[in-house]
């Protein structure tokens, strides 16, 4: 009997795993031959990535005209995808950094993949502002404030697009470093288990001479805490800044002070939606049910219902303020959103983001992986449409009715959106194949091992069901 269970808290890891079991379970997927399922997923996503590269190449070769934008609607799928992916990138940091600071131990089994997801989502997000530029080949340089010989020509610090450049690049850097630091102890374990010289060299280099000493752990814990502290404000700042692309403009429907908190809530909402989607897949395909338990799923469900309601409140507030402001342009923008030619997108957004998460008030549904999977897809769809609604419906009918128009996206734009998922999953499949997908160094820390712990795990092979109540044979502690 190795594990000691609290009568008040359910264990965070199921299956009565020993430390060796955990190392083995996690490393198995990067040491053995990949499964057919992995190959399938990897190749499909690589193919979709290929489509992305082709259509994006075509866009760069021909011009932005291959998209359906026009003189009235200057942003469509491009910036919608950008904001969507940035939003997705929020949950990772929230789970790793914020929950770490709040000592939410349940995060340990999901934080690694959530962080990886953040990183890949930010990569996808960062691509869209680049390819949406009319002249990427000079634009990617000119948005950087580097010393140059162009006299007074410098970047425009008043432009929210420039703030984006800083916000996104900072976020990408911090997320990558934070993720990498967390990986070091696990990489060292993988190095130690490696048999081939190339693996030894690869993981050895990445592990940077980690030897598992107390001194190592001491430094590691401090650095991890510092980076968690650095990353936390970014969760709030990045999407606030992205929201200012819209909030600082003069266009009715964009020009709204509520945007920063509204966008952050939306980002966390969408991020958790995407984490749920990914983890439910990973849990099933990589047999990680013991590590990603129903309790994890339920916790995430609670975050979704909270943030979904916040987003719903924001939608309502926008309408109230539009009416209350007395501005004819403002009130028209919102009436047009709900009843105009793009009303279909508005109602998709409301049903997916506000109505569907309300089902999670039921505990049964919160603990039903299939239901959660479908819901998480709804949330992803709804949040993509939220950005579409904000961008396109505000632009297509603004101040002067003579310029009003409609926006018909082209196949190229749709393929670029689909293709960006290809990129995302391509990176994710690479990640689960190359890097330990669960932070097993940290998971071991939440195992609650007792005094008479047997590191070989030989005495703990008895099946211990953990569902709602402690297993048979564990000591009952009276509440009295």
């Amino acid at each position: 009997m190795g594990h000691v269970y609290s009568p008040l808290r359910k264990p965070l890891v199921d299956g009565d795993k020993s430390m060796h079991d955990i190392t083995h379970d996690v490393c198995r997927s990067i040491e053995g031959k990949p499964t057919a399922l992995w190959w399938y997923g990897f190749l499909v996503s690589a193919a979709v990535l290929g489509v992305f590269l082709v259509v994006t190449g075509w866009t760069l070769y021909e011009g932005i005209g291959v998209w359906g934008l026009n003189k009235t609607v200057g942003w469509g799928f491009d910036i919608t995808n950008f904001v969507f992916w940035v939003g997705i990138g929020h949950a990772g940091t929230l789970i790793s950094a914020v929950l770490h600071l709040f000592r939410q131990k349940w995060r340990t089994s999901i934080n690694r993949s959530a962080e990886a997801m953040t990183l890949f989502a930010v990569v996808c997000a960062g691509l869209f502002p680049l390819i949406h530029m009319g002249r990427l080949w000079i634009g990617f340089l000119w948005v950087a404030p580097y010393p140059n010989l162009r006299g007074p020509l410098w970047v425009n610090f008043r432009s929210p697009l420039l703030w984006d450049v800083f916000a996104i690049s900072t976020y990408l850097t911090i997320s990558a470093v934070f993720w990498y630091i967390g990986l070091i102890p696990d990489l060292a374990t993988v190095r130690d288990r490696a048999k081939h010289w190339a693996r030894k060299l690869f993981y050895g280099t990445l592990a940077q001479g980690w030897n598992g000493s107390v001194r190592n752990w001491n430094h590691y814990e401090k650095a991890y805490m510092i980076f968690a502290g650095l990353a936390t404000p970014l969760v709030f700042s990045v999407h606030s800044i992205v929201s200012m692309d819209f909030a600082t403009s003069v266009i009715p429907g964009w020009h709204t002070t509520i945007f920063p908190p509204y966008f952050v809530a939306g980002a966390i909402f969408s991020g958790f939606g995407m984490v749920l989607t990914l983890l439910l897949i990973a849990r099933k395909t990589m047999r990680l049910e013991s590590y990603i338990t129903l309790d994890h799923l339920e916790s995430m469900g609670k975050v979704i219902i909270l943030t979904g309601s916040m987003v719903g409140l924001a939608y309502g507030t926008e309408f109230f303020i539009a009416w209350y402001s007395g501005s004819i342009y403002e009130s028209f923008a919102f009436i047009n959103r709900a009843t105009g030619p793009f009303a279909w997108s508005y109602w998709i957004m409301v049903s997916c983001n506000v109505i569907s998460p309300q089902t999670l008030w039921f505990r049964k549904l919160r603990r039903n992986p299939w239901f959660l999977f479908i819901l998480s897809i709804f949330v992803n769809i709804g949040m993509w449409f939220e950005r579409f609604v904000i961008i396109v419906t505000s632009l297509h009918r603004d101040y002067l009715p003579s310029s009003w128009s409609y926006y018909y996206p082209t196949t190229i734009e749709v393929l670029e959106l689909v293709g960006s998922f290809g990129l995302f999953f391509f990176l994710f499949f690479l990640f689960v194949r190359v890097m330990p997908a669960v932070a097993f160094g940290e998971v071991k820390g939440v195992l609650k091992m007792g005094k008479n712990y047997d590191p070989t795990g030989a005495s703990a092979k008895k099946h211990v069901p953990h569902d709602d109540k402690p297993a048979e044979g564990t000591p009952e502690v009276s509440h009295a």
Partner: protein
Amino acid sequence: MEIQTQNDDFSDMPAELRQEAEQVSKSRRDFMKVTGMAAMGAVIAGCTAEDRIVKPLVNKPEGITPGVAYQYASTCQGCSANCGTLMKVRDGRPVKIEGNNLSPINGKHRGLNMDAPKAGALCAVGQAQLWTLYNPDRLQGPRHKEDGEVEWSKLDAAASAAVKGGKVVLLTGTISGSSANAVIGKLKAKGAHHVSYDAVSRYSIAKAHADTHGKSAVPRYRFAEATVVVTFDADFLGTWISPVEHARDWATQRDLKFGRDSMSRLVAFEARMSLTGANADERHRIKDSERGAVLVELANKLGANLGAAGKHSVPADVIEKLADELKSAGKRGLVVTGSRDVREQKLCNWINHTLGAYGTTLDLAAASHQKLGNDEDLARLLKDMEAGSVSTLIVWGCNPVYDLPDGEKFKELMGKVSNTIAITLRADETASECTWLAASDDALESWNDFEPVKGLHTLAQPGVRRLWDTRNGYSCLLKWMDDADKNKEYRDVLKAHWEANVLNGQSWGSAVEMGFVDRSAANSKTQPDFRPAGMGDAKAAGSVADTGALEVTVYESYNLRDGRHAVNGWLQEMADPMVRVSWTNLALMSPTTMEAQGVAEGDIVEVSADVDGRKASCKVPVMRQPGQAEGTVAISLGYGRTKAGPIVHGRGKEEDAVDPDLLAEGVYRIGGNAFPLMGTTAVGGSISKTGDSIRLAKISKHDSQEGRPILKQTSLEEWKKKPNAGNDQELPSADFTIWPKWEYKGHKWGMTVDLNACIGCGACQVACSVENNVPIVGKEEVWRRREMHWVRIDAYYEDDSPFDGNLTKNENPEVGFQPMMCQHCENAPCETVCPVIATSHSEEGLNVQAYNRCIGTRYCANNCPYKVRRFNWFRYEHHNLTMNLALNPDLVVRSRGVMEKCSMCAQRIYEGKRNAALNNEDVKDGNIQTACAQTCPTDAIMFGDRNDAKSTVARLEKDPRNYAVLAEINTRPAVTYLTKVRNRPAKKSELALEHDAHAHEEH
């Protein structure tokens, strides 16, 4: 810019020099001289399609500085109104056509004493004439129908033989010039016949006057004299006879600036919504079949005793009131009609005569020569051709196979003529049926003369050495008839004729410099007497039976006119200003009629009718036109050309243009030919769906301003009571800004648009495109709403009926036009959002765009509340080297991925400032003109320095009508507008604007 007196025809110089060079290879010295001059010629005429070696000048040619543009006076041949023009010629090629502001036809400063003309007003068609010149799709040399390219000598031999024997007929459009008619006279003296006709004929006017006044002529209309104008389907602001002249004249009576406080009245009766109707103070929708009845009733109310008029839908009190108005206007009243029915024209003549208007608002003594076509001659020619008695037909500058109502029959009849010769710019529908095609010079390559109104002789001179192996049409005729002058350049023939007959002692040089000689002072002032007997059966026009069938109205399109400009990309893309659908003509119907006919927008329908006993039809897409009379369908002429050359397709790429699949769709892509549907009287017809439909390339999709205070308007009464009527919106303080305020120490450029003067014609749009190298994008791209025009003309349809979601469904809406270009805001939303400062504010109040810095995020365009920024979605190719000669060398073409927009013609501002500095003086108001302001026939757009207290724009800032669009968002635009004032009783909404605004908020 300087005015260059062109004493020598330099356009022909290189040719002469070449001959000279052949003769003088005697001495080294001569050789050097000739090569030096030839090099100069190469620079001056550096625009030939041939490969030539361009060498730097050894000696600067006298009077010409390379890189400096000179202006040469000429005459516009875009339509037969023959406005005066100034060609801006730089390095031997015309880069812009402007109006001649001293011309009695279109000059805005006629009567002012100026020693040299300056650039002035011209319509969109005139502005776009460069396209015709440089379009390589013209004939580049003489051709034979079967043998293809031939030598001139071969063609000349055949033509000379053909004009010698048998019945020779020369078929042309209106030819008014003195020298031109002298040449044709010589041909006639040899037994040939001359027949002239106008595709859009005004012969009914001449014919009516022949009967009622004994003079077969189209009078010269003087709208500047008229205080009450009534029009029955005469679109005099758009296309009728001399539109620039009429618009300019009419607008002088509508001006309420600087203390003027009276306005003329314009009342329109029409079936379709014309530009003139849209500008009318009062507009009544009548079918063509009701027009005669209304005229008869109006005449009756004015004292004619014509018996009861037939049925019509206009309330009796309207006509009663109108008659009273006309009576009190007396000789300053004017009634015009665009009818092809002579009887209706006679009724107009009677009314005008009764008012005493002859001599004031219309002048028959100094008549117009702008429409000289004679339909009776034409009918006689057709009969002769049918009988087979015509042996030689020379078709010159007209296209009867396309533009006669029964063009197909004409084509057949041409088969009966043994010799057919076309003097033509391109192998059009008629020329391609002729045996010989004599490639003619473009109007901008050749000498010509005109007499648009009696006594006013105008000259056209070449602005460029001829680009290809073409020839002046008069030279052709002289050569073929073996005249004594056959080997002379036509310029010399013309000069000799003018010296003998026109100049009357005045120097040839001054005539060339001014572009015209005005001998109208010698005109008789006495108007021919009215002959009551001539009225004949005119009153019968009042009882045309309304069959109840759908009535088909065809009209001349503003942009393509009678179809001769179908090849012109600028004009195709600008679209008819009333309809605003590019690259096609349409079956226009009111929303109610569309419902009744069960058709939807974009459906392609076949409109068929029996016209003068002939079955005719035309396939065109349907479009709704609020304000059109119920039970009518209107189709514009000029479209549906089948041999107009490769019409620019897609994104304006040449390879797209010749895509056979696209051309196979031709009938839908370029519209349908409506000439067969043109009848003398009302045409009853029907429409049937073809089952196809297309996406219409609409310039604008929404016609209501949604109760927003964008185009502000009021009535004359209200304005008189309260000078800021319609412009009394309360605005937040304009002082609040978080940025430091701009200080304008020197100039502060600004623009004011008088909405009362703007007729919505779109001349500014084309002028801007030509001046600023704005690309055209083609039908598909316009459908995607990506047209590049830097100025757009917003048209708002207004009445009190509620918004129905898309277009207004108004029964008889009022239309207001508002030119919308970059507003050059002081607090510009675009400037703050650009990440790389590609757009910023200049010290002189301009919002400037640095194309080279732009990285194309489109954020500026999104954040522009006026949506006036234009993005280069593709590489709008400029790979046709000949077409590129039309580009303005003063500014760049923009690459793809770059944002562009109105710069207030920055290049002109720099030039004006430079010229002022060279003369050591301050910039004078009016010396710098943007392309739009300059070409505006009605002076609706005014440009100037707001810091100069004497400037027009600065003075107008104090006008209570002055307002900025969207002032409530505090962008502080440099462009302001003056409230539109309509001369009619105030509407409810105008009495209580604030109340309405509240009602809308609660909506």
